[in-house]
């Protein structure tokens, strides 16, 4: 039987690559009986999904991450582009 410590690494790894069958079975078995590790797996999956969502939420009409390009930088970049054209 795998320990929680081992399972914590494997459920993370499983988000990145396919585990070999014997590992997959062993993890599944452990998760069946271990509430903490099931939680851990669910929470890592959630973080994984949320992270993938992150950049799609950077749209300008979304003020969740409201940082803006300062007016000086705006002017500087516009000028640089103009010179380059």
């Amino acid at each position, binding site marked *: 039987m795998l320990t929680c410590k081992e399972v914590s690494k494997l459920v993370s790894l499983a988000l990145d690559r396919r585990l070999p069958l014997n590992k997959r079975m062993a993890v599944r078995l452990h998760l069946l009986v271990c509430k903490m590790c099931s*939680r851990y797996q669910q*929470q890592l999956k959630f973080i*994984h999904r949320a992270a993938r969502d992150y950049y799609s939420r950077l749209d300008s009409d979304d003020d969740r991450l409201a940082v803006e390009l300062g007016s000086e930088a705006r002017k500087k970049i516009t000028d*640089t*582009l103009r010179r380059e054209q």
Partner: protein
Amino acid sequence: MPKTSDPETWVSQYGDYLFRYAVLRVKDENLAEDLVQETLLAALRARDRFKGTSSEKTWLVAILKHKIIDLLFRSHGEVQVDDIERAADTTEDRFDDSGHWKTQLGNWGNPEKALEDSEFWRVFTRCVEKLRPPMADVFILRELQNLSGKDLCNVLNISTTNNAWVLLSRARMRMRECLESNWFNKSDGNES
């Protein structure tokens, strides 16, 4: 031939978006501004090659991603064995000698609803920012930018993919703890 829009309008159309994209990664507003400028300059020079198969915004973001990866590649010394060992060590901390969790993991209930909450994303950003350098880079490149394990190792100069997975596993564990103490425990705090 598909054409880009007038470059004169790029800063007002995409400036904020690209800036936000860059600033999380580089954590330095001046550097992020430079990246936006470099991206738009590169786009201007490559304007003839814009194929129009993706939107202009997607095209610009792809250029910015390369700029960010270049920057990381140039600025990154080799990830030290120390960093990897330290990451592994701190993972050990969370478990007792027989490999069981030392502390209970919180119940997050239905976490999906957090995704609709702007404050959650602020907490999420802060948690990413709090990760220490090799872990932050691994987390951002893999989770946010979806780089493969092999590319991850090349960009960050990590010797084996196995080491990358150790760092990533650790980064995810830190993120979990950070989100739990700054968001999930907070919002459910009164229910016990």
